[in-house]
């Protein structure tokens, strides 16, 4: 246990105006919260609330709270904290998904043992390796303390999808990198590369899908509501992304046909899973709206349009180069837009107290997985 007892070096060099009004000559900083730095820009926020000031009398009927209000909130304040994640997280969902699906396709092509697919196998391996590396960089960039990223592998905790995913990514990085470097090599090195290619394909499966579990295992209403359909959407979107990216690369005729089939399967599943997500999110009024409104709605509508466009181009017969390029570009953008859309839907959902209240009152809080819901009054529970 840490955080207890005197810590040497504490309090030295702390300016007396650090926001705590503690004069370092009079007292020392060694409380539990004394580690917290006081940001310089905090002073500028003083005097102005970082949100809209409440302007009506709180006790008026229909206003803030009390049983008199039909759907009471606490001054409209969110129940939950908004996710602190930045753009790097959905960007990682995209690059990790592309890496996973590419590793799987590479391994499948490897199983076939066809010589003419060597080019595709190499490209899949490099896509997986670069996608994993970029993804790792994005994840580390998002951390509040990036220098401590290795703490992710300090324990194995199956209850935490982020911990499981960190182990998956930690395995995927070296496996996909070594398979990529050794692709095309002969003899023993080639055999090691092939083994790494198979192993990379195996970890590519969870790599493409665990991020959906990561997002679902939260208190954010819309994310937890779509936990059964989101994995299908994320995996399908990973297939669309990987196949679309490969379509932009130089491939022979046979390889083109494989990648196009993979892209068609991905995009079709992507669109179907998108509808399933809308349906499961719409189970409770006021929860699913996060998927259709604002920034998230724009991203998800764009994702559906782009993916449908990519699918349409890919099913038109003929193998003109412009078709591959257009389908690849639309599909890759669509796949990224899906991840960003789902991410921003969660941000909006966490801001909305009604989403939490309505979801749980509709029986989709604890009641869904426990026999009874929580006590919310002298005689009542949250749901019957």
């Amino acid at each position, binding site marked *: 246990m*840490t*955080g*207890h007892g005197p810590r040497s070096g504490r309090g030295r060099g702390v300016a007396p105006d650090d926001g705590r009004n503690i004069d370092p000559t009079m007292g020392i900083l060694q409380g*539990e*919260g*004394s580690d*917290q730095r006081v940001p310089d820009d905090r002073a500028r*926020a003083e005097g102005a*609330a970082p949100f809209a000031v409440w302007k009506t009398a709180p*006790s008026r*009927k229909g206003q803030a709270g009390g*049983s008199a209000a039909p*759907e*009471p909130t*606490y001054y409209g304040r969110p*129940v939950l904290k908004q*996710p*602190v*994640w930045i753009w790097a997280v959905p960007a990682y969902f995209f690059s990790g998904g592309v890496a996973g*699906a590419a590793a799987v*396709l590479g*391994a499948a092509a490897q199983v*076939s043992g*066809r*010589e*003419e*697919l060597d080019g595709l196998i190499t490209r899949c391996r490099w896509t997986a390796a670069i996608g994993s590396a970029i993804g790792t960089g994005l994840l580390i960039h*998002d951390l*509040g*303390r990036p220098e401590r990223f290795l*703490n*992710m592998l300090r324990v194995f905790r199956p*209850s*935490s*999808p982020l911990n499981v995913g960190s182990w998956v990514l930690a395995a995927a990085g070296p496996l996909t990198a070594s398979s990529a470097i050794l692709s095309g090599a002969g003899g023993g090195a080639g055999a090691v590369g092939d083994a790494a290619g198979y192993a990379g394909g195996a970890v590519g*499966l969870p790599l*493409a*899908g*665990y991020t959906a*579990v990561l997002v679902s295992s939260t*208190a954010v209403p819309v*994310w937890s509501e779509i*936990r*059964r*359909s*989101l*994995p299908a959407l994320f*995996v399908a979107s990973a297939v669309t992304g990987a196949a679309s990216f490969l379509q932009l690369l130089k491939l022979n005729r046979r390889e083109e046909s*494989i990648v196009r089939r993979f892209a068609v399967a991905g995009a079709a599943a992507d669109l179907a899973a998108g509808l399933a997500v809308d349906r499961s999110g719409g189970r409770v009024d006021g929860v699913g709206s996060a998927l259709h409104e604002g920034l998230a709605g724009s991203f998800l509508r764009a994702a559906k349009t782009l993916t449908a466009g990519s699918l349409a181009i890919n099913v038109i017969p003929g193998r003109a180069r412009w078709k591959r390029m257009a389908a690849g570009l639309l599909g890759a953008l669509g796949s990224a837009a899906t991840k960003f859309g789902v991410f921003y839907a969660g941000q909006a959902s966490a801001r909305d107290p009604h989403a939490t209240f309505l979801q*749980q*009152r509709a*029986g989709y*809080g*604890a*009641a869904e997985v*426990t026999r*009874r819901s*929580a006590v919310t*009054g*002298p005689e009542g529970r949250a749901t019957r």
Partner: protein
Amino acid sequence: MNAKGFFTDTTVCIGCKACEVACKEWNQLPDDGMFFTGMSYDNTVDLGASTWRHVEFVERPVPLAGQETAQGNFSWLLMSDVCKHCQRAGCLENCPTGAIVRTEFDSVYVQPDVCNGCGYCIVGCPFGVIDRREGDGRAWKCTLCYDRLKDDMTPACAKACPTESIQFGDLDELKDRARTRVDQLHQRGMSEAYLYGVDADNQPGTEGLNAFFLLVDRPEVYNLPPDPVVPTKKVGQAWLSMAAAVLGMALAAAGAVVSSAGRRRQ
């Protein structure tokens, strides 16, 4: 060591904010900026990285037994909110680094020297308690005054509370006391009184809160979720869906390769 916790009886809270001040002083937490919110007397707004006690002020246009105000149809609800130290804690179960641990006092504690600021605890908390401190990069919340408990002292907020609205002690004893208090209030005509999160039967989603509350209106009024659940209780369904989806992906990849016929390698 016995499990320790808080019983917060909102019916005797007078909204003095001594708990907020004592918490900030003892833990040497920086201030959160001085601003006016217009939300009754609440300028603290919410719990956060540097606010571990938060007194809520609800002005209701309805009367409450035992409360008389100059305005007729009016009553105050005051509540000192805090980390609930859940039996099934969403933050702890989501933490990928093992920074969040359960202590010998059965409280939930974030080890600041381990936390790498991934932010996954923040979305795991069904009460919106834990938060990441900007400029510091780590997640922070109430420690149940772990340093004070080590020296057999009462947490700062409970020590400072002038009305014993915040009661600290052995969890079993607090639960008995709380149930007696509810019976007493019911006899006095305050029939709205009930306990929020006192045990696993009361709140199955969290299997009980080590910091539970006596409330007199719906949880929503106090900005508390009506049926909170630790996300881990539902995550199995997501893993199963993922397993099915990635199986589909593997089949699609194999199908794409097999369906395009070609020469086999020698």
